[in-house]
């Protein structure tokens, strides 16, 4: 019953249905389509729409109704991202879209392609003070090794997920699960991970991490001891003693090095728990969800009676937690007992400042990948010239319109914060490898000079008319506009 297909029809071989797909249509699965005669995955192509009023709260995915009316071109700036653009792999042919547009009187070209990355992975930063696992221990998803614990950083733990050895160097299952884990992390979905001899984690980019079933809310400003160090000067002279209650290390101003340096005099205070070094105490209580991550709700529970030979009536005492969420102010009576009083105005600011300095705890995901041969060949006939042009900052690299950090040294190895990209910007191929958008933007004259595919350059207006499946999203105000020559890190003059 099959007739000879029309010339603009292609046959998809992604599954045995072997659909004939007409130009601009998708196959039975709705996942593969025919764009310009090429078989590509057709997650909708995303165009960034520069928010006129930068700083307005973002509405993700401003899906446009109906046909593009052509009017936007004159009033707004559009940047064509590579999300959903398709790839050149495995053929050495020009990138799916090479778009020219005029910006501030300069002709710019953006080479738009989706890269298939076997050499790729994710650097995952988890804000937590909990011990997640020893350095170098395996990180697993669905029981398969997908990465490892790397360095502990201040207030956080770094994990390395993915990389070519997990994707293609291990068993089939390891590769498949690694690919799935990377895809979900990059598309900001929730992922369950376990660390060998360590913690269970549930993480999603930009959301608080869940460690062993407990959600991390705020990062401490520092441990109790560090808090004393940071705020000693602000307290000096306004209060006689400060105790920063912390499950890890509780700090005491008068005994702490920072207090001594300022000349704070001894107060006769006595703390429950095990003294580490002067002014620093471990295990003042049990771990919990109250004051400073302990189980106490009355901070006086960690104090023993003041020493009569050092303390004095009317001694002023501030007790505060490492997040500033809990605080109490006391003065000693004639019998040297702490009596709670209202917090004096002069101490309010320091307590508020502790709170202000506690950042929300997050899991953050940086995607890292290297752009290899065929991808660069899609941009120019002489691939090394593209690398060179990127190094010399003549060419700007973006991923879904988001700025990328390009590593020094050889190749185009870049990192990008997935939260700065449009949602669901990533795909995969069953190799397994990740599909990520990458755009190279440079001056048209520079593009010609490095051997660009000038015959394939299309005007932006033309691209917008041709594409059937387009989705416009508003650019993030914190991202530099990819086409703007004057923005930081862009093509030099």
């Amino acid at each position: 019953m099959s007739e000879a297909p029309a010339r603009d029809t292609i046959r998809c071989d992604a599954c045995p249905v072997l659909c004939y797909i007409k130009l601009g249509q998708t196959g039975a699965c709705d996942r593969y389509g025919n764009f310009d005669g090429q078989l590509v995955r057709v997650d909708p192509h995303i165009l960034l729409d520069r928010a006129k009023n930068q700083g307005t709260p973002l509405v993700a995915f401003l899906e446009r109704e109906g046909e593009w009316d052509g009017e936007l071109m004159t009033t707004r700036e559009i940047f064509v991202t590579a999300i959903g653009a398709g790839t050149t792999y495995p053929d050495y042919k020009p990138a799916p879209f090479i778009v020219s547009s005029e910006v501030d009187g300069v002709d710019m070209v953006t080479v738009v392609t989706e890269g298939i990355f076997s050499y790729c992975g994710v650097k995952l930063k988890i804000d937590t003070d909990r011990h997640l696992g020893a350095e170098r221990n395996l990180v697993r998803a669905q029981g398969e090794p997908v990465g490892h614990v790397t360095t502990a950083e201040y207030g956080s733990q770094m994990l390395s997920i993915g990389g070519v050895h997990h994707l293609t160097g291990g068993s089939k299952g390891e590769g498949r699960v690694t690919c799935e884990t990377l895809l979900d992390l990059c598309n900001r979905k929730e992922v369950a991970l376990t660390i060998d001899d360590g913690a269970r984690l549930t993480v999603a980019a930009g959301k608080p991490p869940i460690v062993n079933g407990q959600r991390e809310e705020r990062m401490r400003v520092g441990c109790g001891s560090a808090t004393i160090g940071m705020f000693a000067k602000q307290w000096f002279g306004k209060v006689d003693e400060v105790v920063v209650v912390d499950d890890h290390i509780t700090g005491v101003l008068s005994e702490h090095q920072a207090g001594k340096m300022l000349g704070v005099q001894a107060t006769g205070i006595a703390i429950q728990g095990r003294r580490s070094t002067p002014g620093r105490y471990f295990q003042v209580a049990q771990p919990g969800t109250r004051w400073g991550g302990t189980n106490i709700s009355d901070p006086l529970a960690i104090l023993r009676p003041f020493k009569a030979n050092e303390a004095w009536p009317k001694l002023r005492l501030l007790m505060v937690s490492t997040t500033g969420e809990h605080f109490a102010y006391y003065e000693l009576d004639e019998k040297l007992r702490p009596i709670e009083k209202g917090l004096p105005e002069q101490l309010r600011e320091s307590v508020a400042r502790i709170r202000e300095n506690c950042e929300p705890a997050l899991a953050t995901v940086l995607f890292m990948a290297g752009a290899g041969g065929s991808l660069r060949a899609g941009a120019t006939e002489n691939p090394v010239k593209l690398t060179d042009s990127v190094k010399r900052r003549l060419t700007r690299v973006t991923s879904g319109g988001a700025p990328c950090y390009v590593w020094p040294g050889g190749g185009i190895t870049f990192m990008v914060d997935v939260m700065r990209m449009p949602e669901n910007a990533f795909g995969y191929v069953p190799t397994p490898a990740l599909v990520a958008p990458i755009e190279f933007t440079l001056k048209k004259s520079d593009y010609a000079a490095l051997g660009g595919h000038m015959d394939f350059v299309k005007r932006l207006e033309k691209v917008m008319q041709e594409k059937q499946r387009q989705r416009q999203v508003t650019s993030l105000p914190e991202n530099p506009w990819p086409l703007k020559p004057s923005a930081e890190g862009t093509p030099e003059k």
Partner: protein
Amino acid sequence: MRDPATIRLLTDGHRLHLSDGPIDLIVAADGTPGKIQRAYEAAARRFVSILDELCAELPLLRCRAIADSPPPVGPIARRMAAAVSPFRERCFITPMAAVAGAVAEAVLEAMNEVGQLDRSYVNNGGDIALHLQPGQSYTIGMVERPENPSLFGTIELRAAMPVRGVATSGWRGRSFSLGIADAVTVLAASAAHADAAATIIANAVDLPGHGAIVRIPAREIDPDSDLLDIPVTRAVGSLSRQDIEGALNAGECVAEELRARGLVFAAALYLEKTVRVVTAPDSYALTEMMQRSLQHA
């Protein structure tokens, strides 16, 4: 390059996701952990050969069903042919009209062959095969449009009802429709029967010759379409109240006829936020339940 089938648990840790080419199933089972495990393994084993099994006979399955059509070989293909046979006299229909439901049934059957589950379902893009032990029930949510997934009603399906299949058809869905219904949801004895019947009823919710409806020959969009050059609905402009009632009347007639023939148990027809429910006169409880839930939506 052929993509391998996807077999994975969803992040809820309970439901199974099976995907291969255009087939995409969500599977769930309730029972002891061991039974669920065995059922999911059986589902996966059955699943991986389905696409090849169907593709081997695809040309035949894409041909109009007629009285002397050669019988297909594969068990799923046979189910498809049987499900569309009651309609082959009245209109153009191919076994593909029941493919989604038939696939769901086959996987459900494989799961329940290896052990008794309390209840289980296989959802193939809205065409659902159900298994219920006595005393068990499922609550099915209905949506008006795929891109606007808010429930417009729920139906509680209890084991005592003669319903083991639920299917939805409409021009906004993944398959082509000849009619203009936003959605027609059908309850029937099996998923394949529900699938075929939903297609027929959704096709009947129509206003032939109406100027606001854009129709395009199926093969102009999909060169492989089993519907050949039959015009399929691509857009529906604004309709008057009279238009909506008229289209729903036409669909209701067909639904009522299928119900009287015992081919469907109940159907809900949805067009432009207007709903018709067709059920047996004696199944008052179900009628009332469906209508109440619809009004509340």
